[in-house]
């Protein structure tokens, strides 16, 4: 494609403004790429983008492009104004599932780059908001070949549409001292297990899963995933008394009072001289004290995960956060991990069988109500599921319920 003399770009006066300023400019990157490779699709994309900046409107429309055997994973884009910008009349995106935690080695990455430069635009999103490697800009004719090439090297497509979507995990135990759960492993096993549901739309709508090593939730799982898996612990916070004392000596007592003691959401921490006393029964595992004093405090040893269900964006209902569905599940041995996956599968099956079209699991739960959901799923109600018990009497009270006959 590239020529002897330098490849010419068209004027993009609006975009050029985005080459100014200290932050790395994607426009400069695009131009560099186009010039070096002479890839006309990139030039066309720049031109159309510049036109969008001028007219303040977008010009892509969808279509259907895919790879053999799969029903999802490629986002097709055709220009609505191909006469104006014929070079970018096709500009599809291939979504690739990255390794949990977004760790790479250069060999694998260079291979992706080389293949992509050969068959696609050379533009890559690292990463999409859901966590995909997004290979942006390819013509329909090259899609299958690109997929086959990378699939040989262990890469598989991600989700799009009414499927289990690409999972996302924080850096996790690979590098984080706060990780209470091996989220990378769970992520890998879970998504591998549901691979069929990732590739072939068979669900009412999208189903996202995100895996956080601890309640800091660096992967935004509660707000952005239908299923949120968050590492936690249920015994006592581990304390290193000597380190606590050192911390107080270094930072001063005021600092500790103002930044730790008074900031615990349940006032679970008191000071006795230079000893910190945590009433672990009151601790809600918010992570704050551990964040401020990571050397002195660590999560407990009896670890597992909390699972929340029903998070999603604002569409239709307004933003929905995931709600606790399982306060604590062990998740270390293979059996434990399988039990978690089974639990998830039951929910997916139930949702898939009963939800309306385009109805995410949170909306579905909202529609049928928590009582029905728990009953059908044969789940115990636990107080951890709610901030507080109901404040209205509008429910079908069971006549057989005897509050005086304590269970167990």
């Amino acid at each position, binding site marked *: 494609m590239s020529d002897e003399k330098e490849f010419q770009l068209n004027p993009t006066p609006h975009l050029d403004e985005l080459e100014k300023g200290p932050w790395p400019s994607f426009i400069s990157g695009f131009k560099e790429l186009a010039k070096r490779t002479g890839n006309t699709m990139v030039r066309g994309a720049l031109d159309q983008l510049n036109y969008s900046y001028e007219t303040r409107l977008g010009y892509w429309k969808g279509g259907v492009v895919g790879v053999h055997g799969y029903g999802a994973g490629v986002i097709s884009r055709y220009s609505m104004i191909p006469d104006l910008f014929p070079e970018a009349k096709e500009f599809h995106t291939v979504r690739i599932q990255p390794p949990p935690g977004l760790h790479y080695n250069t060999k694998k990455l260079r291979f992706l780059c080389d293949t992509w430069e050969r068959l696609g635009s050379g533009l890559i999103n690292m990463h999409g908001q859901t966590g995909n490697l997004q290979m942006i800009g390819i013509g329909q004719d090259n899609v299958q070949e690109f997929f086959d090439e990378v699939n040989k090297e262990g890469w598989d497509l991600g989700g799009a549409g009414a499927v289990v979507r690409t999972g996302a995990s924080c850096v996790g135990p690979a590098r984080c001292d706060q990780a209470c759960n091996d989220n990378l492993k769970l992520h890998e096993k879970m998504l591998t297990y549901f691979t069929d549901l990732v590739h072939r739309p068979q669900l009412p709508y999208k189903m996202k899963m995100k895996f956080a090593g601890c309640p800091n*939730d660096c992967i935004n799982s509660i707000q952005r995933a239908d299923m949120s898996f968050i590492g936690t612990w249920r015994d006592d916070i581990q304390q290193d008394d000597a380190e606590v004392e050192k911390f107080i000596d270094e930072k001063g007592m005021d600092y500790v009072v103002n930044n730790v003691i008074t900031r615990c959401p349940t006032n679970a921490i008191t000071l006795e001289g230079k000893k910190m006393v945590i009433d672990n029964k009151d601790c809600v595992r918010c992570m704050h004290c551990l964040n401020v004093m990571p050397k002195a405090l660590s999560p407990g040893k009896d670890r597992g995960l909390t699972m929340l269900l029903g998070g999603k964006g604002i569409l239709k209902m307004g933003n929905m*956060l995931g709600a606790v569905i399982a306060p604590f599940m062990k998740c270390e041995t293979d059996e434990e991990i399988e039990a978690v996956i089974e639990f998830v599968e039951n929910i997916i099956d139930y949702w898939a069988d009963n939800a309306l079209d385009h109805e995410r699991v949170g909306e579905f739960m909202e529609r049928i109500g*928590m009582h029905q959901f728990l009953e059908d799923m044969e789940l115990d*109600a636990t107080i951890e599921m709610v901030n*507080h018990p109901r*404040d209205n009497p509008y429910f079908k*009270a*069971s006549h057989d319920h005897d509050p005086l006959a304590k269970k167990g």
Partner: protein
Amino acid sequence: MAERTWKTIESGPHPYMEMLHPVCIKNYGKWKYHERPRPGVLKHVAESGDVLYTVRAGTERQDTVDIIRRFCDLADKYCEGHLRWTVRNNVEFMTPDWSSVESLISDLEKLGHPIGGTGPSISAVAHTQGWLHCDIPATDASGAAKSIMDTVYEEYVREEMPNRVKLSTSCCEINCGGQADIAVVIQHTRPPRINHDILANICEMPSTVARCPVAAIRPTTVNGKPSLMVVEEKCIYCGACFGACPAMEINHPEYSKLAIWVGGKNSNARSKPTTMKLVCHGLPNNPPRWPEVNAVMKRILTAYKEGARDWERVGEWIDRIGWKRFFELADLDFDRFLIDNYRHARTSFNTSAHIRF
């Protein structure tokens, strides 16, 4: 009846000024501070230096002219002919004279009226009409209130609770008794049985249909007459239809149970006002003394008394210790019905990883 000669004067609320104790009139709007010299007695001090003592006593609420006349006698004797009632049906006697306080107290006690309900005590139960007068009651709130006050009597005459405790009992799910620290309210366990014999004659059908919060009532025809039916899957046994139409018979000796609610708060002190939350349902409606209800109430009050900090209301105490601990301490079971599934249900869900283990 004789010919009516009087022409109504639409006077509205009776003017209050002539009702006030002279010391109240003199210092109206100019009170400086108050103290509580002992349980059941308030001392208000005015900017003028005037002092006014208030003695508060418990009453039957369902009073009689005899009871009221005896209060009037005491008011004449000690309070220059003035007295008032509180919003919780306690009677209050005011006098600037400390020496009157003692004899007033002893006179009241002789008449069987406990002195208390002030400061951090359990004040009188706010209750409703029940079987004595209402047309839709499933229990008798007055009787339940009496049995509860017998149970918590010692906490009325003392000031040993963490903060004021406000109780209420209501005789149907409508809950005229309002939001309280701890409340007892009816909760039905099956749909209304429709009395088709009377329905056609007495029911304003469209109103009744409209009253149902879940649109479970539909027009139908029974024995050729227009009538109503209830879609039982939808019905949430709330009894709202019974208020609109007496043919929607929701009340039943067995299927009308009692539920306990906690953490309602009306004041703005510290935390904002809160609604009360359901913590126990399915208690038998067991007149004349409702022992099961009393037992649960007592358990909650004991846990609160032991665990709460000064000035913490019941709901604020629970907020601090968490609902999990509350259920443990009050020895109550959590079950799925306690999870909201009504309009704003999701706003009550725990959408966080904050969990107490």
